[in-house]
């Protein structure tokens, strides 16, 4: 059997199996073992155990449950709601002000679990009905919430960057710092678009009349008070990495500890809230970690079968670095619509990153950032994107699936603009990393 045929068969078998609706982690694990037994033989079992053990002793991955714990503590403290209320008061008189407030909260709060669903559901419940009540356009409302929710995959501390760093063997701290620029760029593009759009057509996002509001100084103080604690928390987490004081895993623990202190300050600290956060954390962490374990085994077998080499060979033969760039982005985009991002990274990064670096001379941090932005695009893309399904599951009054599809499109355009800007100007990534890691 020729190598390419084997690769194609394996790919079809894998995607077909995933669509059977069984948990992704267990499907990958089971399929990996079965393929291994056929193509490698009994040696598969010790390999699978060793691969699992290597996940259990991976220091960068310890950051995952720690940051997830931090996010759930913050969520349970009601900080997102307080922040949304505060910023809303501040920017409500602007055209599209409420949608801008949603974007700001999502940007600061992107500390969220890296599970896109969690950000979209919490923002959707928090802000969705309110925006619609204030006569905001349905498509703009859902588009803003979905786009804001997917920011969590890029803006640090994101789970995606942790997994990317661990698999590619590059510094997670450097990825965190590098992602700040592209993250702010995207969130800036969203706010700029919302403002201009509502300026031209105020009916889409009417400003709240000034008469209904307190005077500016009262609103300013209240807004600042609500924004400062979470911003400070993010500053501590990212600052400790930026100045080389802590590794991302340590920063995660510091962040979780600081979040508990905030919870105490807000008067929300009690056993039931702590238990809620602990239960949610164990489920989300194990979900992510088990995909890593399952795909890690699958990937080892995939490589041993020679499929990794075949796939890599096809991409090496492209010859041109922009051609390689376009084809990898297309593949990541298409897979991003159907497979969980953790699985995509675990499978493709070990194959593509060495080629990107050694054959085409691409910077792994820049390349990684583009993969992250690209995955955001695929989460928003109709008809399969994850974000769309989470939005639909919220069942906001009067919002149809068509509204959700149409609402996503302008934000997809903005993401593509962001992707192109970062691709052309690597400075968005490298400026801060050079500043922090030049020595």
């Amino acid at each position: 059997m020729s190598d390419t045929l084997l690769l194609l068969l394996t790919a079809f078998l894998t995607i077909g199996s995933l669509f059977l609706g069984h948990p992704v982690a267990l499907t990958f694990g089971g399929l990996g073992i079965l393929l291994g037994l056929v193509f490698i033989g009994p040696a598969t079992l010790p390999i699978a155990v060793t691969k699992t053990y290597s996940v259990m002793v991976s220091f960068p991955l310890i950051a995952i449950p720690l940051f997830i714990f931090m996010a759930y503590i913050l969520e349970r403290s009601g900080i997102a709601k307080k922040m949304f209320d505060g910023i809303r008061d501040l920017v409500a008189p602007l055209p599209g002000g409420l949608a801008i407030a949603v974007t700001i909260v999502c940007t600061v709060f992107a500390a969220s679990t890296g599970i896109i669903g969690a950000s979209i559901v919490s923002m959707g419940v928090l802000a969705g009905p309110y925006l619609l009540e204030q006569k905001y356009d349905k498509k703009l409302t859902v588009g803003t919430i979905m786009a804001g929710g997917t920011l969590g995959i890029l803006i640090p501390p994101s789970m995606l960057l942790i997994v990317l760093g661990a698999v590619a063997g590059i510094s997670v701290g450097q990825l965190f710092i590098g992602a700040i620029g592209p993250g702010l760029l995207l969130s800036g593009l969203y706010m700029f678009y919302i403002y201009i759009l509502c300026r031209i057509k105020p009916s889409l996002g009417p400003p709240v009349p000034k008469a209904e509001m307190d005077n500016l100084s009262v609103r300013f103080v209240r807004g600042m008070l609500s924004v400062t604690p979470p911003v400070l928390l993010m500053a501590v987490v990212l600052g400790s990495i930026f100045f080389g004081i802590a590794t991302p895993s340590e920063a995660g623990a510091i962040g979780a500890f600081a979040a508990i202190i905030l919870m105490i300050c807000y008067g929300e600290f009690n056993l039931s809230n702590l238990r809620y956060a602990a239960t949610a954390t164990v489920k989300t962490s194990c979900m992510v970690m088990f995909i890593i374990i399952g795909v890690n085994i699958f990937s080892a077998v995939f490589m041993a079968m020679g499929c990794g080499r075949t796939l890599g060979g096809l991409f090496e033969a492209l010859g041109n670095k922009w051609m390689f760039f376009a084809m990898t982005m297309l593949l990541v985009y298409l897979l991003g619509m159907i497979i969980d991002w953790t699985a995509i990274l675990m499978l493709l990064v070990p194959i593509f990153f060495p080629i990107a670096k050694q054959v085409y001379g691409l910077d792994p941090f820049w390349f990684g950032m583009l993969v992250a932005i690209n995955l955001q695009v695929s989460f928003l893309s109709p008809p399969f994107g994850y974000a769309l399904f989470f939005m639909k599951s919220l069942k906001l009054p009067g919002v149809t699936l068509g509204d959700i599809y149409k609402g996503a499109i302008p934000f997809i355009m903005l993401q593509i603009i962001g992707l192109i800007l970062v691709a052309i100007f690597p400075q968005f990534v490298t400026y801060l990393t050079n500043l922090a890691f030049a020595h």
Partner: protein
Amino acid sequence: MKLLLSIAGWIDTCNDWVGRVIQWAIVLLVVVFIIESVLRKGFSAPQIWFTETSYFIFGYYILFGSAYTFLHKGHVAIDLISERMPEKWQHMLAIACFIGFTSVFSLAMVKGGIPIAVNSWKAMELGHSVWRPPIAHFRTVIPVAFFLIFLQGISSIIKHIAALRGTKL
């Protein structure tokens, strides 16, 4: 059927308790990290036990939490197609997947994990760091945790069979 369902109930209770206990390990992990950070940064006294202790907590946490996550359907699945099928087919497909994927995966890990754990206990294997803690218990986590996942798979199969036969749960 009644006996089978009570077995499934027993498995669920068991994994539920494992999860409820292990979920608190995250607090322990935060505490260990904070102690290390304070001692290292504040008193320039990095602890030799820190790295391996954090691996131990993390490893126990993610593996023993998994059967619990499975029980509470926390693992993501792509159910675009399967959810549109008639209910009877959905149950049959789920049973087939449990046999084809979950049981193969978990039993392979138990079978592959036991000899490694047994050898580690026989040799009283120690870690590679200066601290040199015994690590045989850590080698045992994989077969035990995957056995719990296997049991959880059995429980799910029983429940799907019961649903197919129209038994009330």
